[in-house]
């Protein structure tokens, strides 16, 4: 009996957990560094599809959301169309004129709404515009 017990004890292996905390902290630091808390969670919409898209930089970016009814939202607040140029004037000032505006419009939105936003942007001098789109899944 005693012999058998001894054998079992020697075979008892442990998973080394000493480095577990190190691994966890490594991942933690990675996520802390890459985290950018979302300020603009946006409104519910479906972006149109396109193929020739470019990646956007977060720097100096303002996003104008247009939903399927043609309503405009900036930074999670719906704003009347006439106020867009005021807000963009302010953003242009904040970014020292290097503002890039991304228009995220629903694919079923009327083109008239998008054009009205273009006019507002022209009025405030924010001429660098990106039309937000999703990548076509088939055409790549």
């Amino acid at each position: 009996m005693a012999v058998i017990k001894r054998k079992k004890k020697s075979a008892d292996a442990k998973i080394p957990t000493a480095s577990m905390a190190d691994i966890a902290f490594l991942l933690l630091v990675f996520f802390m560094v890459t985290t950018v808390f979302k300020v603009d969670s946006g409104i519910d919409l479906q972006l149109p599809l396109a193929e020739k898209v470019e990646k956007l930089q977060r720097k100096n970016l303002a996003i104008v959301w247009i939903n399927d009814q043609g309503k405009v939202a900036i930074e999670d607040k719906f704003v009347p169309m006439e106020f867009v140029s005021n807000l963009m004037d302010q953003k242009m000032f904040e970014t020292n004129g290097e503002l890039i505006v991304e228009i995220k419009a629903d694919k079923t939105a009327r083109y008239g709404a998008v054009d009205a936003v273009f006019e507002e942007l022209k009025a405030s001098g924010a001429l660098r515009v990106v039309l937000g789109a999703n990548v076509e899944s088939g055409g790549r």
Partner: protein
Amino acid sequence: MLRKSRLKVQEDIPDSSMADIAFLLLIFFMVTTGFFNDKGLSIMLPGEAQGSAKIPKQNLCKIFINSAGNIYVDDQPMQELTTISNYVESRMKENDKLVVIIKTDVNARYEWMLSIFDEMKKIGMKKISLQVNKKR
């Protein structure tokens, strides 16, 4: 006696829960992290001061999208995006000063205009003018 008391004083910092704490924070950051990967088609709007320069008619290619989604290229109805891009590409080869005008009805879907715009980008057309048809 002395040795014994010394041994008693020696204590460890409890680190068995360290991994748990780290994982808790890790999960928090993983959940709150939103990677930014917006993509889009960039355009440059014309400035207000810029006067509208007259472009000779032979350098123009008009694409009209009406409210029903019908597309007319140089007044000919075309439905397939590939035929449109082939047509514009052939005109582009003939004339390197070609300017494409995309005229969209206010009630047309944004999606239609964007798909045409995407086609123009694909064939390398840089000179695109966006216009809108406000007439009913």
